[in-house]
C-alpha cells in the first residue's frame, strides 16, 4: 500500500494511506499515513457505524492538508467497538449430520450441512440486501459438492475456462466461508470476528472439511497443491490454535 502511494505521488497525485501495521508503515515511509488500531481486514473500523467510519476517513483525509512532510504518520486514537464479543449472540444450529449414519465422512457431512444454513442465510439476505458469496460463480450447493469432491480425493476438473481447478477450489472455499459466516451473523446479534471464527472452525462440518483439505495438501507431492492448500485454506491463527 505504501509503495502504491509512492508511485502515485511520484506521478503527481497526493495520497494518504490507512496503516494497519505501524512498523511496516514506518519502514516503508509513505508520504502520509493514518495508523488505525483495528484488526486486519477492517481499515475503517466497525461495520454499520457510519459516524465512527467517517471520523476515521476524515482523520486520514485531513493529513492531505498538512504543509510539512514527508513523512507524516499519525495514530487514530479509538479502538473498534465491534471488536468486543457479543455475549447475547447465538450461532445457527448445525447438528452434526451423523445421527442416522448416512453422513459420516467430512465430505458427506459438509454436503448435508449446507442446506441447514439456508434459512439463516435467507435471513441475512433479507436483512442486508447483499451477499459477498460469488467468487467461484457456482451456486452454494455446487461449491459444497466441488469442495467435498476434493476432500474425497477426486480432484475434480475446473468448471471455468481460464481458471485452474486449484484456483476454483480456493474460490469455492472462500464462498463457503462467506456463506456460513453471513448465515451465522444473521439476526440482531453483533458477533465479533473471533466469535464467528470460533463457531465456523470448531463447530461446523465445513470448517472440518477445510481443515481436511489442508491436511491433504500438506501430504501431497504436488508442490503447488501443497502451497495452495497449506497456506490458503485455514488461517494461520487457527492452525496455531489447533496444534
Amino acid at each position, binding site marked *: 500500500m505504501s509503495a502504491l502511494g509512492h508511485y*502515485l505521488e511520484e506521478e503527481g497525485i*497526493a495520497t494518504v*494511506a490507512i496503516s494497519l501495521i505501524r*512498523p511496516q508503515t514506518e519502514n516503508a515511509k509513505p508520504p502520509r499515513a493514518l495508523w488505525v488500531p483495528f484488526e486486519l481486514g477492517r*481499515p475503517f473500523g*466497525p461495520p454499520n457505524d457510519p459516524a465512527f467510519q467517517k471520523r476515521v476517513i*476524515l482523520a486520514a*483525509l485531513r493529513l492531505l492538508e498538512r504543509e510539512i512532510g514527508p513523512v507524516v504518520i499519525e495514530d487514530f486514537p479509538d479502538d473498534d467497538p465491534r471488536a468486543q464479543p457479543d455475549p447475547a449472540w447465538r450461532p445457527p444450529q448445525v447438528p452434526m449430520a451423523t445421527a442416522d449414519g448416512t453422513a459420516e465422512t467430512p465430505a458427506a457431512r459438509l454436503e448435508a450441512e449446507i442446506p441447514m444454513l439456508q434459512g439463516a442465510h435467507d435471513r441475512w439476505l433479507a436483512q442486508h440486501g447483499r451477499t*459477498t458469496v460469488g467468487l467461484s460463480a457456482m451456486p452454494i450447493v455446487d461449491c459444497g459438492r466441488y469442495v467435498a469432491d476434493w476432500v474425497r480425493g477426486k480432484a475434480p476438473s475446473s468448471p471455468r475456462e481460464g481458471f485452474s481447478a486449484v484456483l476454483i477450489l480456493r474460490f469455492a472455499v472462500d464462498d463457503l466461508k462467506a456463506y456460513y459466516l453471513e448465515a451465522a451473523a444473521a439476526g440482531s446479534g453483533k458477533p465479533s470476528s473471533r466469535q464467528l471464527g470460533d463457531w465456523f472452525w470448531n463447530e461446523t462440518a465445513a470448517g472440518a472439511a477445510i481443515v481436511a483439505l489442508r491436511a491433504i495438501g500438506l501430504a501431497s507431492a504436488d508442490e503447488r497443491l501443497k502451497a495452495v492448500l497449506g497456506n490458503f485454506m485455514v488461517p494461520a491463527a487457527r492452525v496455531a490454535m489447533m496444534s
Partner: protein
Amino acid sequence: MTRLTSLLPAQAQRLAELECPDFTTRPWVTGPALAQRRVTIVSSAGLVVRGENPFRGRDPDYRAIPSDTKPDELLISHISINFDRTGFQEDRNVVFPLDRLNELAADGVIGSVARTHYSFMGATDPVEMELHARELAGRLKQDQVDAVILSPV
C-alpha cells in the same frame, strides 16, 4: 485490534518486516483545501465487481470499480485468508468507504468523489505493480482526481 501483540508472533514479525522497495525519492504533492479536492479510493483488498474475473493469485494489475457499483456487486478476491472479512460482509464501507465519501461530498467537506475507484491485490510484489500504478495515475488525472485514499486489508 491490529496491535502486533494481537497477532501470532511469526505473523507479526513477517508483517512488520515485509519487504518494501528501497525508494531513493520522497515525493510530496500538495494541493488545495479538502473542500476543493476530488477523492478516489485505491484499495489493496483484491476487490472485483461481481461478474468480472477475480484476481488470480498475485496478479499485479488493478480492477476498476465505478462509483455506481451496488453493494451487492462488490467481492473480495484477495489471496490471503489471514484477515477478517466479516466486517466487509456486513458493510462494504469497512474496506471501501464509498458511502462515507459521498456523504462528505454532500456535506461539502470534500469537493467531489471520483467517477471510478480501483483495487489492486495487496499480496503482490510492489515492484510488479509499479507500471500499473503509474498507468493508473494517468487515468486519475483524466478524472481530475487530486486526492487518493489508500485502503489496505
